[in-house]
């Protein structure tokens, strides 16, 4: 039990690169989820657009939508979140829709790119405040799921990063000149 333990512990200590809240890691027994507490297929287009706003398609690499981020988030929230976390997340989706309509008169998917960015930036600032207080915030979860899902997806790992499944050797000290990170 060597290296991986170190990396796991390091990830925990440093706040981790894995899905948001400390709540996520708690293992308290939860009753079975009700249907209404799951992310449903009709949520996927909204999740795709939220993800695409966080990590958009650019000349350099594809966006989160190309990584099917909505499907990924659906799977992770439904399978890996407990009831409380899933509820927080799903309420968050509703909050985004409500505030989108309130501010712009349209649901999130019908907003312009600029409007989407403006709205999510507001939630992001809230989430960052919560993070300082070590409180979970739905947008913190969405953002971290998006980032994690994207960079471990095929388009994310192979185009936004450099993916080399069989390096063949290790070179410890090479110059770095602004290249993409290794996946």
């Amino acid at each position: 039990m060597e290296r991986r333990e170190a990396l796991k512990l390091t990830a925990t200590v440093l706040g981790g690169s894995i899905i948001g809240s400390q709540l996520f890691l708690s293992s308290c027994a939860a009753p079975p989820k009700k249907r209404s507490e799951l992310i449903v297929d009709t949520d996927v287009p909204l999740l795709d657009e939220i993800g695409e706003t966080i990590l958009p398609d650019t000349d350099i690499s594809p966006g989160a939508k190309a990584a099917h981020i909505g499907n990924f988030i659906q799977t992770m929230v439904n399978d890996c979140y407990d009831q409380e976390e899933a509820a927080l997340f799903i309420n968050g989706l509703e909050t985004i829709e409500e505030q989108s309509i309130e501010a712009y008169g349209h649901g999130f998917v019908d907003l312009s790119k600029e409007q989407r960015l403006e709205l999510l930036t507001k939630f992001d600032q809230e989430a960052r405040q919560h993070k300082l207080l070590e409180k979970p915030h739905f947008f913190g979860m969405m953002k971290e799921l998006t980032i994690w899902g994207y960079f471990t997806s095929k388009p994310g790992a192979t185009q936004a990063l450099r993916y080399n499944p069989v390096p063949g050797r290790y070179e410890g000290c090479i110059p770095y000149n602004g290249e993409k990170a290794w996946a």
Partner: protein
Amino acid sequence: MKMENQFDAIVIGSGISGGWAAKELCEQGLKTLVLERGRDVRHIKDYPTMTMNPWDFEHRGRMTKAFYQENPLITKAAGYGEDTAHFFIKDADHPYVQEKPFDWIRGYQVGGKSLIWGRACQRWSDYEFKAPKKYGYGIEWPIGYNDVAPWYSHVEKFIGVCGNEDGIEAMPDGEFLPPFEMNCVEEHMQSTLKEHFPGRHLVQGRWAHLSEPEQVHLDQGRGKCQCRNLCMRGCPFGGYFSSNSSTLPWAEKTGNLTIRPFSVVHSILYDEASGKASGVKVIDTNTKEEMVYNARIIFVNASALNSNLILLNSKSERFPNGLGNDHDLLGRYVSFHNYRAGSGGAIKGFEDHYYYGSRPSECIIANYRNLKERDTDFVGGYTIFTGAYRNRAEEVPEDVPQLGADFKHRLSKPGDWRIYMYMQGETIPKPSNRVYLSGDKTDDWGIPLLVTDVGYDENDEKMVADFLEESQKMLEQMGCTDLYSYDSKQAPGLDIHEMGGVRMGKDPKTSLLNEFNQMHQCKNVFVTDGACMTSTGNQSPSILYMALTARAANYAAEQFKNNVL
């Protein structure tokens, strides 16, 4: 499964030490039966995830919430995840009783935990063998470094251990393949220690990886490590050592090996007339059929605590308290490695350096405590595993957008360099740390459950405190920022270095095994896995188990041929 039931030797367990017993005994011409309680796992063929990409895993490596809830124990194990779960047990299948919290991590399959081990292969120094007696925290080992050194070499050459010859007293050199390189931050860490901490050495660890395979490795069908660092899935290249990739197929080639999976050993049968063990009672885990296999030599390599369990359950008129247990020593002096604490931080100034490939090894700061003389308020030493890495950026500066195109591009670049350290500390074997059989609870096969009663003591607390203090000093001197440290207070067992219970010693009154891992009171039974350990040292123990096993097996084979056994 119809098969003959008479063999020259029986090996209980097919993990890292059982595989070595099988190899050596088969090579010596003994018809050998290896009993494995789990399923068969064939090299490459049975590594279902070995070439999967991150996106091929439904949950990208994580287990589901329901799975964590059903398996709170095993999911804690180092390296456990969607890619490796099939090489670990499930909690509900294999209960035990925790008198005190103890995380007993198990991998029940052919190859055992050799598929999922940490792969660090440092030799013990003679100081480690001598310290328990010298400083009064244990009995004398019946062997010293010189007894084991040739067997370390024997094992190193065969399994392939890469490392540097560093000439460090706390960590003797061996027969090494070329080491992996250090990265530039690690070189900086090394030179900082050299300059500011005399007597502390940061070097590459020694690892069971084929950095440059030799003929004997190619003959095993293994090839060069490809630096994927996905070892615990099973390696399609045979780049790291496991029983599955190495010792078992090698033993099989002799024609002398029989492996029987799905065979849990109930007990070793003692024959009053001969004063020896006659064989083992086995239960087929699927059919629950009982059977007996006989042999002139029995090697117990069931993993440290299961070897204790089998011996405790091997009751006879002569040994009502378990085989060889005339004195209530069996199951006592169980110990482990103290893995509780770690430290780390970020380091600036190396932004124009990077690396290529995923190195499967770590650096080590060799033990610097209580080596030649006692220099702290605790006994025993600790090794520090350490290294530097540079992951993808996880954050962007506060003053730039936290969403959008530029954000994505920044996250696509390497982030800060980071340094980590964590301890692997010696613990004191003591009679109160023990395992024993449950009086009323049994498993699915009618075998009593094991009770673990193992905990930390004051010495462990002092060692944790010393590591935390010293590691912070070293990190500060290296120029680390954003320092952190932690004491996880994890339960014993999660180190997966549980040892003892059937300890070696010179005196049959205070030990169960002699200098050849042979039971004092039952000469044809050898215990050569972690159960045999008299003390824990501070090095990763697997290679010592392998060396002791090879040594004992050759001794046993000689005794067999001379008709002594």
